[in-house]
């Protein structure tokens, strides 16, 4: 295993967890769905550089579509409760072990943005990374 491979193995999950943290903290400090999605995407870039794998386990267009769908559903959901489109509110609950927890419903829109950005970055890896590599192999340049 190369040094980069070893480092990647340790960093990849850590960076993903950090991206989730950025997603959640976005409402209270620097972060948010866009930045978090880019951080998670960079984790995939790192893994791609180390191992050449661009796979996410699912097809990137599906992730992009899911992100857009989540965002749209989050935008339209308030209508079901008689509120205008894109209205937000605070959901609070008393969870066991964790204690009182509250979340702003706009988080769901941010989750959609996060998924979409991750999908876009992995799609770029697939088309520009793997795709160009295959092109070069086909052309006998690699």
């Amino acid at each position: 295993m190369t040094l980069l491979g070893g480092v990647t193995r340790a960093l990849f999950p850590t960076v993903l967890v950090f991206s989730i943290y950025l997603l959640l903290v976005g409402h209270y400090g620097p972060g948010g769905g866009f930045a978090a999605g880019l951080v998670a995407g960079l984790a995939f870039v790192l893994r791609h550089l180390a191992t050449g794998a661009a796979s996410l386990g699912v097809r990137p267009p599906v992730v992009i579509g899911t992100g857009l769908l989540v965002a749209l559903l989050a935008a339209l959901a308030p209508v079901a409760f008689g509120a205008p489109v894109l209205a937000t509110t605070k959901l609070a609950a008393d969870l066991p072990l964790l204690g009182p927890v509250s979340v702003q419903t706009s988080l769901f829109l941010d989750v959609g943005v996060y998924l979409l950005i991750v999908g876009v970055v992995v799609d770029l890896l697939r088309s520009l990374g793997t795709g160009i590599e295959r092109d070069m192999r086909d052309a006998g340049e690699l």
Partner: protein
Amino acid sequence: MFALVVAHLAVAGLLPLVSAHNRRAAFLLAAVLPAATLVWALLNLGPALNGGIDATTAWAPALGLTLSFRLDALALAMIVLVSGIGAVILVYCAGYFGDSPDGTRNAALLLAFAGAMLGLVLADDLLTLYVFWELTSVASFLLVGQSGVDRAARRAAVQALLVTVFGGLAMLLGFILLGEAAGSYRISEILASPPTGGIVPVALVLILLGAFTKSAQLPFHPWLPAAMAAPTPVSAYLHAASMVKAGVYLVARLSPAFAGELAWWLPIVVAGLGTMLIGGFRALRETDLKRVLAFGTVSQLGFLMVLFGAGSRVAAYAGIAMLLAHGLFKAPLFMTVGTIDHATGTRDLRELSGLWTSMRGTAVAAGLAALSMAGIPPLLGFVGKEAAFEALLHDSLPAALGILAGSVLTVAYSARFLWGAFAAKPGVGPTPVHAPGPLLTWPTWLCALAGLVLGVAYPLVDAVAAPYATAYPGEDYHLALWHGPGLPLLFSAIAVVAGLLVFRTPLPQRRFPLDAQRAYDGVIAGLGRVATGVTGRLQVGSLPFYLGTILIVVVALPGAATLVGGVWPADQPLFSTALQLPLGFAAAVAALAVVKARRRFTAVLLVGVIGYAVGGLFIVDGAPDLALAQFLVETLSLVVFVFVLRRLPAHFTEERASRRTWIPKAVIASIGGIAVAGMAVVASAGRTVPPVASADYVRLAPTGAGADNVVAAIIVDFRALDTVGEIGVLFIAAAGVASLVLATRYDRRGRPGQSTPEHETDVLG
């Protein structure tokens, strides 16, 4: 009423499930809903004729949008055509399509169209009407194009769509102008107190564009004969009985308020008379029975336009009678053509012969309908035409003479149709026939007989026409079969005699010098040429050229505007924090170095340095969110650049650029850079009052959005719609990049035929 319209669309969506088991049953099931609509309308006859019934459903209250519907006399007359004839034709379809696979699509589309058309005639709101109007255009496109396999059908479908939607968009503009001038989009309110002067004539002309294209008036008429590529029941329903009447209906709807406006009645009467004459003339020269009827429809639509545009009470009576009569005679005539086509395999009147003996029942029904079209008593067509002559003789003699000429042609092509379809022709043997089933003959008979019954029972039609006609000025009138001897009766007699004479006279086979179809083809081809020319000029395939064009436009337009209107801030400091100096210096040095870079990789890294330096400036200015996004995007772009660079030569073009190329480039680039920097400084000084919105954002973020981070509150709450729009753009961009990068490799390899499935799997992952 909205529920009724939605029910049509919902059942249409479910019909394919029925079609999967039995296609015939799907048509019969589809016929139930229009039939029920007709029964519902007739049950509400009393209140509908005495003032009308209103129903309103909120659509988007925040935007003031409502779905308003109204059942009154005019809507009722249209429902007889839309739902009554619709139900009959759907039954006919069961016999016509039988078990052919086309039935699945047609059953669902025809019912959906019936729903859209019902919504159109019931709409009491200009925007509601517009929505249903365009829905019928879309349904027509799909029904004409059918499976999309036939080239002629595709061309006809596109022509119908382009022409009617062009008119529809003009009409929308007219609706908005009219609605704003009237202060209301409710049609009943606009009719009650019509706006005048100012922008109103422009609005009316735009609305007429929509009505003329939809109802195939001169010079937009060629799409209607072309649409005869559709299956005959579709032509009978959409392109004879209902959809093409939408334009006539719109004129009839608005005429009570605007018949006095020159911009309204003059185009209607001129285009209507012209259409009636051209259509009738062309009908005499066609040899395809369906096209004979199609030009006949064009002609009759012109006639109806004149009647509703004339703006007198008698003309309104005539209009309603002719509206019903036309639906009731044109639908069975089309069904007859479909039956003949089905029974003999041809629609060419030069090949058909002796059908009078072999298809006696169909011939009698068609004869009844054609007599109504020619205006022979005691059919409804005669009742309407009598009233029309009476009205126009009273209003304007030239128009009456024009209608008389049109009626002569109508009689002539009616005779030509009957002769062409059924007569035994010398030199042509009897056409072999296989007998049509009852599902084909009964619907034809039903419509043809309705024309006879309503002609004899003219007081019924009179009762429906009266509440509509009273909205017009003029002396009172009543529809009748016998008004006593007079000019109208004389005109009717002249039309019949002269018509038969014209039918007997051989026509000169000279081509008409002006052909609207060629004009349409020319416009479409011209659009293509202009697009090719413009694309060829702009997309020359040189990146420096693209960049230069963009920079020149930036300098010429916003740059000039800044020079004229901008003010250079008096107190512009060179820097605000000491930290800005090294960051700005780094960015400037990197920018200068990029210009001198020989290797692509060096250039990319230097551009990255500029990006990071700008990110640093964001931090210094206290914008951590912006800086974070900037750093991440910069990193990602570097990676993407590196990916792409693998496919590009390591160095920029080796040979030294000539003076003639690099000096203009350098000048444009320098001016562009200076202009943008100058605009940034001027724009930053543009604010003269404290920003209200920003203060509100800061104040409301913790309470309204539950966020400590104002930037996040703006992105996901205050301006969340922007965010949704932006990720939509990203979605499209990602799909575009994937298609460009992955799909083109197959085109390059040039393996046509295999490319599509392979690249589709690649793009989808």
